[in-house]
């Protein structure tokens, strides 16, 4: 028997999923996360589940893992101290940071400027210059560079980055500088921008490469630690990490390009949703991953999640592909307040976090949160975590009362207001990934997961007109499914920057083949057979003069046949019109050419639950009351683990399970499918 393991590290819990390759049978487990050294919980969890099930570590061939190690290093400012080598004249490139100040007019008055990711005292200049066309304008002065590098030795740097102007056209100086760096600092990793992001725009390229260096030692340590612990346990299979773009890469490779792990955590949820949706026969869906402090949303069209060419974590935005996941600071812990001046009801972005947490948790929190509003309205009726935590209903009521008094309305009304407003924030984020990209949300299902997602999903389905609303089984561990079911992925892109009248099908076909063999080699190096590799091609196109590109999928074959360019232009015009309502009669610029290689997908059959007769009464726990639409309504509470396939529930109702609670609205009905998904539609 062979097995694979999916492990997802969350803020509170680490989820483990064991899959038997032949049968697709799964086992799940949950252990508390260990933030000081996340690998401990990973190993403990894996061991615990495997021992329970009787799986030998030698039989585990693959270990799939979504990690927030890189993300946390950035958010907590615990990345490595990075040295940076730039072109003469550009030392302050990260200090100036494109001069950008966020916020509205006068926003500068209260803006806290983040410190550059590579400290200015650790940044030195290389006397050299490459021209925009790639020619060498000034030779590299190696002697001076060596002196400056020597002087850098007192700064205690842990990683080095080289990013020179116009290196995306000609990287000869970057490579030579890297050699000299390695010579002077033999013990620290050196990253050059041409390897990480060979694209125009010096600031973004520098920042991305520096971010890569900053997380590199942290990720390398983590991976090494994890690998050692696995070997000690007896597992020698392949260790793969989930990338921000939803693909996998080997842990060894991730040590060189950890910048592509920054959104590894949220990507797991989307990958998991994708797997559930595929099994439920849903091609188009929106995902809603709502936790305690924030909510992530994404759009999946025709079974493919949308990608974007950047990754944002906190203040940092780097140019690395990630699933197009938008985050709003709205979660169960978001605090409601009424500013004296405007008497408006505001919810978030401040959050009560895990401590003191919502008032209902009885851990000392007194401020009203979204969770408290849910408690007041009867949407969160029972204790949490299967009885491990009782809710302080009185505390929740008192907390919400403070908002009700400020607005001079009833406590229930205030609680509904808090829910409506937090839903509106999530609605805004869902619109960003749908309506604002030219998609009609009514063509999409909505899948909710994370601890709080299923409580709010039905309301968002009503706002968006997105049906059915899908609540997958165990919405709290969906990420681990994602980790175990996605594919190995390698991606490379080149700046092209030529207009359609300056290039030919032939030239593009040659470039596609060249990049294609590069990424194929990457996967072959990961022990994937050539026959199992799928290549995907994309070109970013814009009208000459624009700065924003539209990424378009293309067939390499069409360019070999000589029809690719014409088709590319046509599909660009169509897409531009769909997005922005107009076309222009100017040359189109082909900005970037990108090839992605995908390994075979991890087949995993979904579990099947026993069928019932449509009557959910066997799962009913008791009658209940909820406050909904301005009045109290009779409802019922159901236990999810007792529901059978085919069961039909009429709202309002509350469906509880170990790590999540689903709210079914008045006027809506829920059906349970063969895999245990709750599918909500309007009655």
């Amino acid at each position, binding site marked *: 028997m062979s097995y694979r393991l999916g492990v997802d590290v969350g803020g509170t819990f680490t989820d483990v999923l064991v899959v038997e390759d032949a049968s697709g049978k799964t086992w799940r487990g949950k252990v508390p996360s260990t933030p000081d050294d996340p690998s401990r919980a990973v190993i403990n969890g894996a061991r615990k589940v495997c021992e329970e099930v009787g799986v030998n570590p030698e039989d585990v061939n693959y270990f799939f893992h979504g990690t927030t190690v890189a993300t946390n290093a950035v958010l907590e400012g615990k990345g490595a101290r990075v040295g940076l080598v730039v072109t003469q004249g550009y030392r302050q490139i990260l200090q100036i940071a494109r001069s950008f100040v966020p916020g509205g007019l006068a926003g500068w008055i209260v803006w806290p400027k983040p410190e550059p990711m590579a400290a*200015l*005292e650790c940044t030195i200049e290389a006397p050299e210059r490459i021209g925009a066309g790639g020619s060498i304008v000034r030779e590299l002065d190696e002697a001076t560079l060596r002196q400056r590098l020597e002087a850098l030795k007192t700064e205690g740097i842990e990683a080095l980055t080289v990013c020179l102007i116009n290196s995306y056209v000609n990287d000869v100086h970057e490579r030579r500088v890297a050699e000299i760096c390695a010579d002077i600092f033999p013990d620290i990793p050196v990253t050059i921008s041409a390897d990480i992001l060979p694209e125009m*725009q010096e600031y973004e390229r520098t920042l991305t490469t520096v971010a890569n260096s900053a997380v590199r030692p942290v990720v390398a340590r983590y991976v090494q630690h994890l690998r050692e612990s696995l070997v000690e346990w007896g597992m020698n299979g392949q260790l793969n990490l989930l990338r921000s773009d939803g693909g996998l890469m080997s842990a060894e490779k991730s040590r060189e390009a950890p910048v592509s792990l920054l959104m590894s955590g949220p990507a797991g949820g989307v990958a998991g949703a994708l797997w559930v949706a595929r099994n439920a026969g849903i091609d188009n869906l929106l995902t809603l991953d709502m936790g305690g402090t924030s909510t992530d949303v994404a759009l999946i069209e025709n079974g493919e999640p949308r990608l974007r060419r950047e990754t944002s974590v906190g203040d940092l935005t780097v140019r690395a592909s990630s699933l197009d996941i938008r985050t709003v600071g709205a979660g169960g812990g978001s605090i409601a307040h009424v500013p004296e001046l405007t008497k408006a009801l505001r919810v978030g972005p401040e959050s009560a976090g895990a401590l003191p947490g919502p008032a209902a948790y009885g851990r000392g929190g007194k401020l009203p949160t979204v969770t408290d509003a849910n408690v007041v309205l009867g949407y969160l009726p029972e204790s949490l975590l299967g009885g491990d935590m009782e809710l302080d209903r009185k505390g929740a009521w008192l907390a919400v009362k403070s908002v009700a008094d400020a607005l001079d309305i009833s406590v229930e009304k205030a609680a509904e207001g808090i829910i409506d407003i937090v839903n509106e924030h999530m609605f805004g984020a869902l619109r960003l990934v749908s309506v604002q990209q030219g998609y009609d949300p009514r063509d999409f299902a909505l899948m909710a997961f994370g601890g709080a997602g299923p409580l709010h999903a039905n309301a968002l389905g009503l706002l968006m007109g997105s049906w059915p609303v899908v609540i997958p089984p165990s919405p709290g561990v969906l990420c681990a499914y994602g980790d175990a079911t996605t594919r190995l992925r390698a991606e490379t892109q080149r700046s092209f920057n030529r207009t359609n009248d300056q290039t030919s099908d032939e030239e593009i076909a040659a470039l596609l083949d060249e990049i294609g063999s590069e990424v194929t080699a990457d996967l072959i190096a990961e022990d994937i057979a050539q026959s199992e590799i799928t290549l995907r091609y994309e070109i970013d196109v814009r009208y000459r*003069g624009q700065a924003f590109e539209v990424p378009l999928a293309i067939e390499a074959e069409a360019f070999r046949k000589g029809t690719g360019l014409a088709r590319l232009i046509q599909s660009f015009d169509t897409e531009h019109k769909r997005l922005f309502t107009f076309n222009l009669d100017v040359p189109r610029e082909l900005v970037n050419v990108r090839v992605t290689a995908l390994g075979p997908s991890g087949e995993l059959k979904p579990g099947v639950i026993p069928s019932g007769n449509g009557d959910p009464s066997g799962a009913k726990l008791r009658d209940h009351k909820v406050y909904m639409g301005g009045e109290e309504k009779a409802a019922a509470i159901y236990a999810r683990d007792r529901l059978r396939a085919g069961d039909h529930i009429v709202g309002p109702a509350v469906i509880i399970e170990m790590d999540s609670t689903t709210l079914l609205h008045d006027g809506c009905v829920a059906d349970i499918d063969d895999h245990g998904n709750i599918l909500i539609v309007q009655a």
Partner: protein
Amino acid sequence: MTARIVETNPTPFNPCEVDPITLDIVENALKNARNEMDATVYRTAMSPGIREQGDSFPLIADRKGRMVVGQFGSFIQGFLNGFEGDIEDGDVIWLSDPYSCEGAVSHNNDWLILLPIFRDGRLVAWASHFGHQTDVGGKVPGSLPTDGGSIFQEGIRIPPVKLYKKGEFQEEILNLVLHQVRMPEWCRSDLNALLAACRAAERRVHEMCARFGDDVFVAANEELLARNYRAMEQLIQTTVSEEKLSFTDYICDDGRGFGPYKIHCTMWREGNRVILDFDGTDPQSESSINFYMNENMFKMFFGIYMIMVFDPQILFNDGFYPLVDVRIPDGSLLKPKFPAALSCRTHALGRIFDILGGLLGQRQPQFLNAAGFSSSPHLMFSGYNPDGSWFQLFQIGFGGIPGRPFGDGPDGHSLWPGFTNVPNEFLERYYPMRIERYETEIDSGGAGKHRGGNGIIMTYRFLSEGTISIHDDRWFIHPWGVNGGTPGKRARKILERADGTRTVIGNKIDELKVHDGDQLHYITWGGGGWGDPLERDADLLALEYKRGLVSREGAKRYGVVLDDAGKVDEAATNALRADMRANREDIPVFDFGPPIEELRKNALEETGLAAPRPPHQQSL
């Protein structure tokens, strides 16, 4: 004459009560719609000025034309008062002439699209967006002649015209206009982008009406405006005194050798209203530095500065306008008479913010920021590529953010929100130039407990023959410091010819010929300092020395002595600080630097440029 709005459906909107939650939700939805307008323009515009530098401004107004979401406040009422004709469903108005919209846009380069949003035969809202065009024709590339004598030299003036008439595109008007400009492709695309943004707003307004009901949407707009009125009324009552407070600042020169021009504003409260009176401001200039300031726009600036600290989540709107009375003397620099030239109004526009800061902070100096809102320094570079094609660049520069109560002013950043630089690799790829140096000017930020941000030094090497124009200010009058902070350094421009000769050139010049290999060192102002420099952490200065932001000599302004290794010499520092403390007078709230007469006397020596002559010596 006023515009006639043609509504085919005479049913009045039902006034209805909007509960506070729905109100907040409408507010949110409006905010999202405005963000979408920004995103649309950013993604589709072509000129770097609009696209990367964010020089464009969206607005959604209620059916009466009052801004409910946006940035600069609404001008629609003023436009309607002056527009002769019908406004019908399907119309799209296009304009650029400041004199035809009470200064809603303040030079011909700003093209404005105004879209009335009709629903079932009734006007429910307006959407508008304006953005700076790289070129609108006229006597110089860029259409911003510093020596322009009248608005007729500043490119094509578009009075309010219908780009779409009842849904029908008026192509000939567009063709006529595009025929007058040097960059028709960019203008066409940018105009499309502005319109696409308004169309996005239109769709969102329809969705909101469908979701909440037309009556609720209209009533909610009304209530959002009223909520703002109430909030502002309270704020004015508690923060603005009945006693008159005044503040003065200057525009250094007019590009024709006269200056500085005084802008003077007095503020006081009468009952629940605040009066802002610009009496005492210098008469209009014969050149193009005049700023035809829309009074509503100034009310908006005032409101935003007031509210920044109190409820930053508030959606700012026009609701409080009746509480503010703005008085600007006719024929002054801020309300010039037609056909005064207006193109280079950016200096006065920027300076207005320093004046607001200085006015509002006087009663509570702890909330006072130093000065630094110079302007938007411009560089224009145009000519013919070796292949014979025309190139033209318009670029906005940045400088030092002032020292703030909040902390140091960031180095080399933008005081305008959301603006970014044009990436240098982009410039080098698409223009015959190389950016040899891109860093901040050491010691240019004013000293203070919170240091003023350094200005930027950008060295352009031109790789082909062409002409350049420069627009900058704060080269003669210092960006002032506050609460003990000292003024920031002034702006400077140096032309270094290919043969090595260096010349200081003016900060407002047109069409200077440059050749292959010439270099321009474009140096911007530093922000003023905030608070007593002697209280700044000495170790921080040692670090900033190492970072190349402050020199050893510059550290002495803080009373800090650094040794040869760059470490703090504690004994020497203590002695120097004690000495400086003993020998100074009481710390004034404002440090404007030397008086104007002294600046004039030392101008040539200190700046390399002759002092401007007083404006009243112009031959009016």
